[in-house]
């Protein structure tokens, strides 16, 4: 419980700083909107084929926008040696990573919400028909992306080319999660009932989240200190 409280304090602090500076949210939100807008010119919005690739387009945009958010997660701790202060305090490495993952999750969900509105307008896709299933999918897939983003954000924070290195490292790892999210999203956008095929991908998402969260917590000290 104490670790969870510490993690929530870290997330709350990160969100308070982000609400004040808006540096990650503005960059990620603007990036997502511009990409969706550009793709709407490239394809014929409203065509069935466009709706079929809608899931893929959205999740790639979310993953790219996420990298902009994750890059700031630990970089925010560099000025004034705040990361050293946190690491020498009572906060455990696992709580710190968990807190960063919570903050990443909420920021990326906000960008996803904005993107879905833009997507609905420019691609004529009625994404709101299955709101609960879509919300559950977004939380499940975004949690996996956020944990990976927090872990590799910590590992690359001291690299000079971290803005480049972070996406290069995380995207290959995200492939199974992205495929699962895309498959389920396409089914939801087509308003098809979720069958065993989609549920299988749902299980992949769940396992991905559990495995990577457990790995992140177990390796947190090594990742952050060594």
């Amino acid at each position, binding site marked *: 419980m*104490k670790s969870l*409280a*510490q993690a929530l*304090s*870290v997330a*709350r*602090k990160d969100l*308070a*700083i982000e609400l*004040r*500076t808006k540096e990650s949210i503005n960059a990620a939100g603007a990036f997502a909107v511009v990409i969706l807008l550009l793709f709407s010119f490239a394809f014929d919005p409203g065509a069935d084929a466009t709706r079929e690739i809608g899931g893929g387009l959205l999740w790639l945009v979310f993953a790219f926008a996420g990298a902009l958010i994750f890059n700031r997660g630990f970089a*925010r701790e560099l*000025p*004034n*040696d*705040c990361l*050293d*202060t*946190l*690491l*020498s*305090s*009572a*906060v*455990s490495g696992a*709580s710190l990573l968990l807190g960063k993952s919570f903050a990443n999750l909420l920021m990326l969900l906000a960008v996803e919400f904005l993107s879905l509105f833009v997507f609905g307008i420019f691609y004529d896709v009625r994404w709101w028909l299955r709101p609960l299933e879509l919300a559950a999918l977004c939380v499940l897939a975004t949690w996996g992306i956020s944990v990976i983003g927090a872990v590799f954000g910590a590992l690359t924070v001291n690299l000079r080319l971290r803005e480049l290195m972070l996406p290069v490292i995380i995207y290959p790892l995200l492939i199974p999660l992205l495929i699962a999210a895309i498959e389920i999203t396409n089914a939801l956008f087509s308003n098809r009932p979720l069958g065993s095929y989609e549920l299988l991908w749902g299980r992949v998402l769940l396992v991905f989240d559990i495995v990577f969260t457990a790995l992140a917590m177990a390796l947190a*000290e090594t990742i952050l*200190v*060594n």
Partner: protein
Amino acid sequence: MPQAIELDRLWKFYGDYPALRDLSLNIAQGACCALLGRNGAGKTTLLRILAGLSPFQRGTVRVCGESPRSEKARRLNGFLGHGIGVYEDLSGLENLTFFARVAGIERPASASAHWLERVGLARAASMPVRQFSRGMRQRLALARAFLHAPSVLLLDEPFTALDDRAIAMLTELLTEARRRGATLVLSTHQLREALAIASHVALIENGRLCYAGERTGDMLEDPALLYRLYTKLGAA
């Protein structure tokens, strides 16, 4: 007297360069040890090892009988490094409240307000840290380090950027901390202020411990005495 800090044959390398060489030192609970030495002697490296921030290659380090990275040692530590360790975009009060929360202090907001008052920043409590002067930042950093009443205070150059009133305030805080039984380790170049508070002195040169012992009256009268007697550079 139980030992708060135990270092036994400690070696720390940066690549091939030995930053600390075969360093053994014990600091008793409740002592105040002034860590002295020229620039690059290894004082900051030693404090970072004690704070659990820097791994070492050989030897043993114990803080309150635990490994410096253990949860217990980190909970008992208060560390002030070269960076002030506070967030520019948060106010002084928000910064302290955050650190109070993660330290598990009950009523974090009132504890934070109390410490802002102690370091003379109550009127600037809601001001973002980016608008603070250098001295105000250092005072906030000190409040952050003292906030959870740590048993071991590791302070790297705590007098930096402080004016005479703030130095008096810090001296009072350090004296109070000693009175409640805390162990203090402070590295500094301000010999006069440090020796006035210290009960013990450790002098490091090129990563080696040149002198460790009680602070004597002679040292107070002539702060440079240690350097002259015990270091090669001082002798030269």
